[in-house]
């Protein structure tokens, strides 16, 4: 069963516009959720994790257990935000298995 769903494969926004990348998960326990980012020709890297409750590069993500969502948001998109974004879940009940979504490619139009 798909643990993490990212419904949008592609997302384009204009520079300065708000951006929201959607992530929904399926997990019965207490999840640990992450957003990873891969910029062009760079390695996959952690953007943020929900337990840190911090803002990285202007991005925030709030865990909504009622809606089983962990959407990534930024009020004003910048061109350098163009990248591939992956939502991931760590499942404590299956030996710390990591499950990644299929990713959303964000393009910020100048």
């Amino acid at each position, binding site marked *: 069963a798909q643990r993490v769903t990212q419904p949008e494969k592609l997302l384009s926004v204009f520079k300065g516009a708000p951006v929201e990348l959607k992530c929904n998960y399926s997990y019965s326990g207490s999840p640990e959720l992450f957003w990873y980012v891969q910029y062009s020709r760079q390695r996959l890297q952690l953007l943020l994790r929900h337990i840190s409750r911090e803002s990285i590069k202007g991005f925030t993500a709030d865990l909504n257990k009622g809606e089983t969502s962990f959407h990534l948001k930024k009020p004003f998109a910048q061109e350098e935000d163009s990248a591939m974004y992956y939502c991931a879940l760590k499942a404590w009940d299956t*030996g710390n*298995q990591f499950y990644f979504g299929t990713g959303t490619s964000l393009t910020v139009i100048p």
Partner: protein
Amino acid sequence: EAGVAQSPRYKIIEKRQSVAFWCNPISGHATLYWYQQILGQGPKLLIQFQNNGVVDDSQLPKDRFSAERLKGVDSTLKIQPAKLEDSAVYLCASSPGTTDTQYFGPGTRLTVL
């Protein structure tokens, strides 16, 4: 600080051949992960090591895939024999412990013809 190193970066083989990938994690990182990322999909965890012991290999196709981390540092992932559907990028990641941030290598792109 040197990052996670992987080699080779690219590999092209014919089906039924064997192939091996190598990963050198960040120094001092106890946990090492191997992922398979098929085009258009997210990374899929194949195996997780804690030092030289296997923490989880539930998604590793054990009939053809094997991995080892004998001295708790470097690791190799082997496919024998390869199938067309094994074409993917194989990512290695490491972290200080199982609850810490993972640091990814550049990946090895495997093409099976």
